[in-house]
C-alpha cells in the first residue's frame, strides 16, 4: 500500500507563543458572558413542555369523574417492553357506572421497563391512557418505580372528552327502558 507522507508546516514565531489561540478563546468567553443565560436552574426551574410531548404514561378520568379505562388489556398486549400489567375487574352492579361493566382492579406500569413509545396511548380504544408532560420519574427502590392504579390516576387527572359515549349509551338504554318504543 502506497504511503503518502505529508510535510508538516513548521509553526511561525507567533504561533509558537500560543497567544493567538489564547486571545481567540477569550473572545468566545467574553462574547458569551455578555449574552443572556440559556441554562435552567433545574430542578428549581423547569422547562416548558411542548404540545404532544410523550412523558410518563398516565390514566385519566372524563370530566364527570368516571375512570375511562375498561381494562381491555390492549395496551398490555401492545406494550413492547411488557411494562404494563392489568388485573381486570367488574364494576359492581350498585355503582353509578355499572353500565360500563368493566374497570381495572389493578393497573401497574413499570417505569423501569417503559420506553415512552406511546403505543399504549395509540391503541387505547377508550382514550384512557395518555403520555402527558411528566418526564421525571425517580425512586430509590424498584417497587417505587412501578406506578399503581392510584398513582396513575393521580398523575393523569382529568382530560376533556368529546364523545361521552358511555353516558350517551346509558341515557339511551334508560330512554328505551320498558320495552318497545
Amino acid at each position, binding site marked *: 500500500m502506497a504511503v503518502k507522507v505529508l510535510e508538516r508546516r513548521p509553526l511561525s514565531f507567533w504561533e509558537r507563543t500560543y497567544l493567538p489561540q489564547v486571545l481567540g478563546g477569550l473572545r468566545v468567553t467574553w462574547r458569551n458572558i455578555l449574552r443572556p443565560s440559556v441554562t435552567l436552574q433545574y430542578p428549581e426551574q423547569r422547562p416548558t413542555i411542548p404540545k404532544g410531548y410523550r412523558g410518563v404514561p398516565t390514566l385519566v378520568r372524563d370530566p364527570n369523574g368516571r375512570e375511562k379505562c*375498561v*381494562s*381491555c*388489556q*390492549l395496551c*398490555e*398486549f401492545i406494550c413492547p417492553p411488557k411494562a404494563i400489567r392489568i388485573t*381486570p*375487574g*367488574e364494576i359492581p*352492579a350498585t355503582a353509578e357506572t355499572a*353500565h*360500563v*361493566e*368493566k374497570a381495572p382492579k389493578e393497573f401497574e406500569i413499570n417505569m423501569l421497563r417503559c420506553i415512552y413509545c406511546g403505543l399504549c396511548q395509540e391503541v387505547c*380504544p*377508550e382514550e384512557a391512557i395518555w403520555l402527558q408532560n411528566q418526564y421525571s420519574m425517580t425512586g430509590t427502590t424498584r417497587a417505587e418505580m412501578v406506578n399503581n392504579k392510584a398513582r396513575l390516576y393521580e398523575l393523569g387527572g382529568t382530560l376533556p372528552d368529546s364523545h361521552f359515549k358511555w353516558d350517551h*349509551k346509558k341515557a*339511551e*338504554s334508560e*330512554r*328505551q*327502558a320498558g*320495552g*318497545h318504543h
Partner: protein
Amino acid sequence: MVTDNKPSLVALNVDGVEYQVSAGANLVDALASIGKEVPHYCYHPKLTVAGNCRMCLVELGSPLRDRATNELVMENGKPKIGWQPKPAIACATNVSPGLHVRLDSPTVKACREGVTEMLLLNHPLDCPICDQAGECKLQEFSAEYGRGYSRYVDEKNAKPKHTKLGPRVTLDDERCILCSRCVRFCNEVAKDPVLGFVNRGSYNTLTCFPGRELTNNYSLNTVDICPVGALTSTDFRFKMRVWFLKQTSSICTESSTGVNTTVWSREGKIYRITPRRNDAVNDTWMSDSGREILREVDAAHRITAPQVRGAAADLESALTTAGEILRAGAVGVVGSGHQTIEEQRLLTHFAQATQAKAYVPARAGSADGLLISEDRTPNFRGALLAGLTNRAADRDLSALKADIDAGRVRTLLVCREDVTTLGLDATTLAKVRMVYLGLHNDATAKAAEVVLPALSVFERSGHFVNCQFRVQSFVRAIPGPIGTLPDVAILARLLGSVTGQPAAFDADSLWKDLAAKQPALADLSPSKVPSEGVIVDGSAWANLSFPEGKLLKFAPATKA
C-alpha cells in the same frame, strides 16, 4: 350421512377449480376440508341445521342436461353449468357429484356484506369490554367480509345486558345475533329445552322459559358455541383476554370417558377449561363439573410440600425417609385410576420388587349417559394395561385390611387415594407405616408417616386410557408448586430405594418397557399417539365387569 369408514369422494367445483370431497358431506364442512372458509354463525357440525343466519350464502350450480336425451349440454367443449338464479345457504346443502360453487362472485360478496351490515345494526360493538373479543366470529367475519363502516344513523336497540340464565351462564342480549345454537344445543344434546326466543323483529330476544333456569351440567357448552359474546361464563367473565392465554391439550379427569379438553392458562394460572373436539369421544362438548376441576390446583386442602411425621420437610429427606420405611418389607401398594399409565407402570415395578399385592380402588359415581361415566377415574384401563392389576377395580380394601390386621402387611405405599374412605379406619392405619403420594390433605395424609406431594393433571404430562381402551395423551399446562417433582420421578426414586438401582422415569424408556410387556401396547410410543388418541386391544379383559353404561360415544360390550 356417510357411515362407512372410507367415504366415497365426489368432484366439487369451487370457483372453477375441481376438488375431491366426501360425498354427501355438508357443504360448509366439505369446503373446510379443502381449506376454503365459508363464513357462518348458526351452523355447527354437531347440531341440526337451522339456516337462519344467512352468512353462508353461496352461488350453486350443476351441469345442464338435455331434457329429451338426458345428455350433458356442452358449451365450448365443456359442460354448460346451470346456475341457480339466487344464492343458497351452504350449510343446508349437501355435496352432490358435479356440484359447482361460487365463493368469490360479486353476488356472494354482496350477500356477506349485507348480512354483516344487518347483524351489526343493533350490535353494541363493545369489543373492548367483551370477553369474546379475540375468538369472536362476528369480529372476525366483520373484519374479513364486512363493509368496514356503518350507514345506520338511528339509535341502536337497548336490550338486557346481564341476564343470569343460570348459575354459571350470564347473557348479554345486545350482543346476541340470534343464531339459535344455544337453543338447539339445549334441545338436542343436553335434552334440557329451557332456552327460546321471545318478541319479534329487532326486539327478538333470547331468554329462559318463565320459571326455568339453565341449570344443567352442560350449560357452559352454550358459552363455547356462542359465536359472539352474548353467552358468557359467569366464572370467566371479565377475568382475562383470551389472546393472553396459552392453550394446552389435556384430558378431563372427571370420569373414564376421557373428555378431550383445552386448558387455557397464563403465567402458571389456569383461567378456564374448554372442550377439544374429538368425534370419537366427546364431539365438542364437556360437562360443567369437569371444568371445575381447575380449582384443584389452588385448593386450600392441596398438599404443596412434603411432610415427615406431620412436620414439613424438604423433598430429599422425605424421599430418604420414605425409602427407609418401604425397605422394611411386608409392603402393600394402593394405586389409583387417577395415575397415568406411566406412573402405574412404575408402581407395578415397585409392587413386583417388594412382592406386594397392589390394589386399585373403584371410584363409582352416577352416570349421565352423555360424558360422565360410572367410573369416576380417568385411567382404570391404564392400570390393567400397565399390569398393576388384572381384576376389576376393588370396591373396598377389606382384603388389605385383613392383611394388615393379620400382620402380613406392615408398610403401605398409597398413591392418590384417600384409603380412609375405602374401609381402612384409623385403628387399622395405626398398625402400618404409610407413605402417601397424594394431592389432598385428607385423613390418609394425617395418618401417613411420609406425605409426598402429587401433581394435578394440569401440572404433569402422561397418558390416560379411557373406557374405550383409547390411549390419550395430555400435556403439562402449568408448573407444579415450588419444590415438587412429577409423580413419575417420585415413584422412580421410591422404586430405586427398594431395588438399589436407579430407575428410569423418562417417557421413552417407560413406554419401551410398556410395549415390551404388554402386547396391546406393542409398537406404541408417545410420539405415535395422535391427538384424537388411539384404541388399543382390550379383549384380554373382556370378561371383567366394567361399571360403564352407555355414553355419548361409548356402548358397553355385550357379553356373548
